[in-house]
């Protein structure tokens, strides 16, 4: 601001920095709490005063992935010695891992739901970003009749509360047998993300100078070649940002998943809460499931942070 800094300005700056750091700590505290609870032994998860320092354990993750039942009688020393370390962890918690007749370990529902989440989120992201990129290019480069209205229509599909759309979609899906299927959710999430993808990508496309393709056309490229060889590489940043946003939305979606699936195609967001049940929930297992589920998004956010900041501002920081 002013060329000469007064001492009061410097003090104010210092206070601002301290406040910002405090706010950041407060905002991150719940996430830290989830992450740390995921590595706690069960008896330390709900202590008051809260346990800050503890010996981290992997047992919540073992429990997360397996089906368990209460131990009626403690395992014999031989049984205990013969068991692999992950089974001992469960014994120590007063439980045993459920096995079928052939002695195969019974998995919990979690790995399956996690895979469903991955399949559905990735496929719908690819579809939404792919279609969105084409459409954005179309809108950005060619004259389209009623362009503003069409773009508003595209955006308006995103304004509806999911529950409103879910009722007729549920009936339609039931009629054609798409209920509780991967394809059903993929279509829904693609439709949901497409509008967003078109709008975001149009902003990025508008930024790429038209002269690039014109030069390519002069050099004898066809329109399609110019699009794939010149425009797409230029739009890579935008595509990355859009993909992350679409992935996060699809990954985190709850309402449609709750309504449209029950076993086969259920994703993790409705599954994890359903595990709380009545009784005393084991918060370490829930925290482990939550933590694993947050991981892909947290990694994504960190890797693509610079693109994200640009994408999120919807062209506001553009000159």
């Amino acid at each position, binding site marked *: 601001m002013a060329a000469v800094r007064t001492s009061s300005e410097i003090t104010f700056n210092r206070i601002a920095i301290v406040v*910002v750091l405090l706010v950041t700590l407060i905002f991150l505290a719940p996430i830290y709490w989830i992450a740390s609870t995921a590595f706690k032994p069960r008896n330390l998860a709900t202590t008051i005063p809260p346990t800050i320092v503890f010996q981290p354990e992997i047992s919540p993750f073992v429990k997360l992935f397996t089906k368990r039942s209460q131990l009626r009688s403690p395992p014999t020393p031989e049984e205990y010695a013969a068991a692999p370390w992950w089974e001992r962890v469960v014994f120590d918690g007063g439980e045993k891992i459920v096995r079928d007749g052939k002695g195969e370990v019974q998995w919990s529902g979690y790995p399956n739901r996690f895979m469903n989440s991955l399949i559905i989120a990735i496929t719908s992201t690819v579809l939404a970003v792919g279609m969105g990129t084409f459409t954005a290019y179309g809108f950005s480069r060619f004259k389209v009749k009623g362009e503003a209205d069409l773009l508003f229509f595209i955006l308006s599909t995103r304004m509806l*509360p999911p529950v409103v759309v879910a009722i007729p979609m549920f009936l339609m899906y039931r009629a054609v047998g798409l209920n509780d299927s991967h394809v059903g959710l993929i279509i829904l999430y693609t439709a949901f993300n497409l509008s967003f993808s078109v709008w975001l990508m149009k902003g990025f496309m508008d930024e790429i100078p038209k002269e690039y393709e014109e030069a390519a056309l002069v050099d004898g490229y066809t329109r399609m070649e110019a699009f794939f060889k010149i425009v797409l590489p230029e739009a890579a940043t935008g595509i990355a940002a859009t993909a992350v946003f679409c992935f996060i939305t699809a990954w985190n979606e709850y309402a449609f998943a709750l309504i449209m699936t029950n076993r086969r195609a259920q994703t993790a967001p409705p599954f994890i809460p359903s595990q709380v049940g009545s009784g005393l929930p084991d918060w370490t297992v829930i925290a482990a499931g939550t933590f694993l589920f947050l991981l892909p998004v947290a990694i994504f956010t960190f890797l693509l942070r610079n693109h994200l900041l640009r994408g999120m501002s919807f062209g506001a920081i553009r000159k």
Partner: protein
Amino acid sequence: MATTMITTLDRSSRAAARGLSDMSIRNFFIIPTILFLIVFNIFPLIYSLGYSFTDFRASTNAPANFVGLQNYRELLNDPFVWNNFAITAKYVIVSVSGQLLVGFGVAMLLNREIPLKGLITTLLLLPMMLSMAVVGLFWKLLYDPSWGVINYFLGLGNFEWLADPKMALYAVALTDIWMWSPFVMLLSLAGLSAVPKHLYEAAAIDRAGPFYTFFRITLPLVAPILMIAVIFRTMEAFKTFDLAYILTSQPTTELISIRLYKMAFQEWQTGRSCALAYIVLIMVLAITNIYVKYLNKVKER
């Protein structure tokens, strides 16, 4: 010059002739998306408009009877439904204004040379990247009166966040503020960084006070982008389902989407819920329209 021009045109038209024409490429790029959105957004809405005039129940095989406007009439005269709308309005106002205050406040503080600014901004984005359902589940533990960490660190004893009908809605809003203030902060930061520096220099030369500078320079220039943040957050808060549904089951936190969900998928009053969905739809469109008009006004200033 003239000769190069001619060859240029000639070459590009030849290139276009070899491949698809621009027109067909445009159609090929745009039409599938429009069709897709019509099939999966507009068609279902028309479908449910039909059902909204019937007493259809998806849980039985009984055929739907046409009942005219009865569903709409009953819903609009139902004090419980109006109560759901009132709860939603209260929730939207509390959470959006909270996010605006916290988000814009933090952005004002962050808008200076701060060590680790990039890292701090990225870390602050984390809450909004998470799933509302999973976050809500975990906040339940944080809010717990006997072993939740919030009460412990704030020294609140056995304060009931979610079991107290009066408090529950604010507790949900607080979690929403935690999740989405970073979004407002980010947009505000973008807006603040776009304010030309020379305006502040001029104000400093005129010995303008900090309040004058804020209300006459900063706020008006950031207003349009703040407005965008408010529009986005209002729409999202109006749609809130997962967070409130998972955190509590108080009647005082029954937002309109929760009422709609229960009506459709627990009570199976399909026809009736379609009618309610339409009422919500019209409200959303009306609110959006008012906002967009207001946004244009702010932009013009």
